[in-house]
């Protein structure tokens, strides 16, 4: 009997060690978890985190007490088959009332901050200083519109640090759920039932987000980014997007990398389905590769789904104004370096089987030109 008990204890020890390893592994520095709910960078997420920690500590307390009692019982009341029958107890009303009341008290203690925070989550900020954003979910990418600026972009939402952001969200197709863990909790999106969410970014940075409602074959790769930046940088961003829709400027290249070299293209797009054939040649680009890319953008039919003008929403494929500067391509999936962008342009069906964008048979050279062109957008 004794060696069995020792074995039992040894095994129990191993379980504790294993659990500790897991817990410690989970406590690695917060920076290595870029999508963590435990590292809030916005005030709504911070409120939620506060509430979460109350429940967590209460739960840990209860857990330790109950599991402790359980282990105590196991060691204290170990019996042998030939032991006399223990005292036959059927219950104890006092004890039962106490252990009904204590959990009730703990829950009441949790309930108060819960209700307060629930109402906070619905207190969407109002006023002219609030940045309004319309979010439209698509299989499998996110469209963002700034009604105050008349701009549309996709998969990378820029917001100024410190300014409240109010999101009004719908979907174009099936349900999705908008989730940037470091700013706020999830909010589902429906077709004819707009939902709201709000947050205020506290620190500049690039924050990953992801669709959190199963939405079909590529749900796993429906990610996006939120770029929180200083207000001045945000203004510059807005200006750049606006410029993507400006009438054809002088062909001279502008200094900035995102400068408008082929802005006339945007102006050509009268309607969402303007046939590429009707497009008159664009203003001559400085770089012949860029010009070739622009031609290919028309010739390959990219223009059929993608607007390159942030002021002209199209809604079939992501708006590509400013795409050259985005950190990721393919809905937050591939790094937006030349290799990543090339891979995506040439083989979208390999990267994300089932997306609307077909493999168009773009050759290596053509891809190079397209990348060069898109870098100017």
């Amino acid at each position: 009997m004794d060696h069995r008990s020792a074995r039992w204890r040894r095994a129990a020890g191993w379980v504790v060690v294993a659990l500790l390893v897991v817990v410690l592994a989970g406590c690695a520095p917060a920076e290595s978890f870029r999508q963590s709910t435990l590292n809030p960078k916005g005030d709504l997420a911070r409120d939620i985190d506060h509430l979460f920690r109350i429940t967590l500590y209460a739960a840990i307390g209860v857990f330790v007490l109950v599991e402790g009692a359980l282990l105590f019982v196991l060691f204290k009341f170990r019996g042998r088959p030939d032991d006399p029958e223990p005292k036959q107890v059927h219950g104890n009303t006092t004890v039962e009332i106490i252990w009904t009341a204590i959990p009730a008290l703990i829950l009441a203690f949790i309930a108060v901050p819960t209700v307060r925070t629930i109402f906070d989550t619905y207190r969407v900020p109002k006023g002219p200083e609030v940045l309004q954003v319309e979010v439209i979910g698509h299989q499998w990418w996110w469209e963002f519109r700034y009604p105050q600026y008349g701009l549309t972009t996709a998969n990378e939402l820029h917001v100024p640090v410190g300014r409240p952001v109010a999101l009004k969200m719908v979907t174009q197709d099936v349900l999705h759920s908008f989730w940037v863990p470091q700013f706020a909790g999830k909010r589902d999106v429906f077709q004819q039932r707009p939902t709201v969410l709000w947050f205020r970014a506290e620190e500049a940075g690039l924050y990953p987000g992801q669709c959190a409602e199963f939405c079909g074959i590529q749900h796993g790769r429906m990610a996006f980014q939120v770029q929180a930046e200083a207000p001045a940088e945000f203004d510059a961003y807005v200006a750049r997007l606006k410029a993507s829709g400006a009438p054809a400027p002088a062909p001279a290249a502008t200094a900035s990398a995102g400068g408008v070299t082929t802005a006339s293209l945007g102006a050509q797009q009268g309607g969402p389905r303007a046939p590429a054939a009707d497009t008159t040649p664009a203003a001559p680009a400085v770089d012949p590769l860029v010009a070739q890319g622009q031609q290919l953008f028309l010739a390959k039919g990219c223009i059929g789904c993608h607007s390159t003008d942030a002021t002209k929403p199209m809604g079939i494929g992501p708006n590509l104004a400013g795409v050259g500067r985005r950190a990721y391509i393919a809905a937050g999936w591939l790094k937006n370096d030349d290799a990543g962008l090339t891979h995506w342009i040439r083989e979208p069906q390999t990267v994300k089987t089932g997306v609307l964008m077909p493999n168009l048979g773009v050759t290596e050279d053509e891809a190079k030109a397209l990348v060069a062109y898109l870098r100017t957008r």
Partner: protein
Amino acid sequence: MATSVLDHAPAAHAEKSGLWSWLTTVDHKKIGIMYGASAFLFFLIGGIEALLIRVQLAKPDNNFLSPELYNQLFTMHGTSMIFLAVMPLSAMYFNFFIPLHIGARDVAFPRLNAFSLWVFILGGLFLNASFLFGAAPNGGWFGYANLSSKQYSPGLNMDFWVIGLQVLGVASLAAGVNFFVTILNLRAPGMSLMRMPMFVWMSFITQVLVLLSFPVITVALILLMFDRLFGTHFYVPSGGGDPLFWQHLFWVFGHPEVYILILPSFGIISEILPVFSRKPLFGYAAMVFSGCFIAFLGFGVWSHHMFATGMGPVADTVFSLMTMLIAIPTGVKIFNWLGTTWGGSLQFRTPFYFAMGFIAMFIMGGLSGVMHSTAPADLQQTDSYFVVAHFHYVLFGGAIFALTAGAYYWWPKMFGRLLDEGLGKLHFWLMLIGFNLTFFPMHIVGLHGMPRRVYTYPAGLGFEAMNQLETVGAFVLALSILVFMVNVAKTWAAPATAPADPWNGATLEWAIPSPPPEYNFAEIPAVHGRDAYWEMKRGGAPALRQYTGPGEHIHLPNPSFWPLLAAVGVLAVFVALMLHDRTGPLGIVAAVSLLFLSIYNWAFEPAH
């Protein structure tokens, strides 16, 4: 017509083996064993699906599974484990032990019982047959509209799902009626409701939940089926339908379903702990009422699955508080179990290991449940791996541990053989370690922002280490199941020598031989208190007269082939609906005819 008792002496039922006898049996014990065997098979399939999922997620950007196959596997894993594993494994114990616990010779409707079994098996096979067509359901076990619509899920995948679940619902409802009536009507003299074993009580509450919640999912599925097959717009926004309505219907069923899965396990644990503590259940009445209260609240909390839909602060508050309330009766149960062991003379046998493991793990699931009862915190936790961890602690750490405890506890009664203690304890430790290794890290990775139902994840978000651990854990878990199978095989080879009462049991099944004779009780027992068999052994109640020889005339129901054929008819009707555009009305007419033919023959054949 009028059958004589003498015609049906046990000798008439002597022929017990052979395929035909299993196909036509109406014996609740044989039916229970078939429930168990088929459910274990489905459990293994679901487990293999889980292992494939874990391999795919072992490293970021993995290509082991295609996204389409991954989606099929996680959908079938969830659907199988809920409807084809945990529910029917509970049904195995309902079938085998409710009649024995209440001192009855069979259930109220033996043929209906066979019908439930066959409908379940056929429904399970039908669902899994979808893999043969490469069209396994791929929209999640929750089948959210409008992804499940024909537009976004063309192909037969979700047709298999919507039909399969309706078929399984028929089985559950038929069994629900049967056990509800059995428990209310067939108790031995003296066994008042408040003297019933706790397993019978929890099973009874489970049947009530089945009866009240399955009609709701049936309607939800019918509407979805009409959308998919006949072009209605119940959940299609372009036609004015509202996908959110599906969520309400689904969770009005879905939350009681959670208690349908766990309450039988509560019952099993409440049977095992007193026996291995050699002490009666602590606070019997509180256990009964907390079970009822949990079931009642279970119908008022469905929207806590929908906090992220933005229902408004008032609804969120109501559903948050209602959900928190459930923690109170659940806590009462846990404390009463500990109270049962407190001061006992604990016998460290395998069933007891699993029972205590159940308590230890279920607490974790309960506490994480309280954590996401707070709506704002749930906005971060829902649809993340934190929730995956939560419900696996409840359904694996809870239900599967308890069902396994039940297997070790009741194996001798069911098969006349005691499972090996050494292998049993190895099974327990491997399962406990593997389980925690698999599911504990999911809490962490979920809080760090890993969403559920993703076929892969990118490197650099800090998900890698936890996912690797989880995959290792899953294989340890699989190994523990393998040890169980070895144990069963080893025991099977040995002769059936288990005594009638190997554990000093408290309930009536231990008063009869192992395995029990076909008629269960030679004499219907008289019950004089709770823990009826302990009462008998102490002399507080008369001992049971055992079978005294071939002269005994015990009246038993006849075997029947019609329940099986009726079950085929049920499946045929649904399949004909599914394929109506290919087979035309003729298929439906043929299927309905088969169903009616079987039911009429069933109704007019002599039952006894």
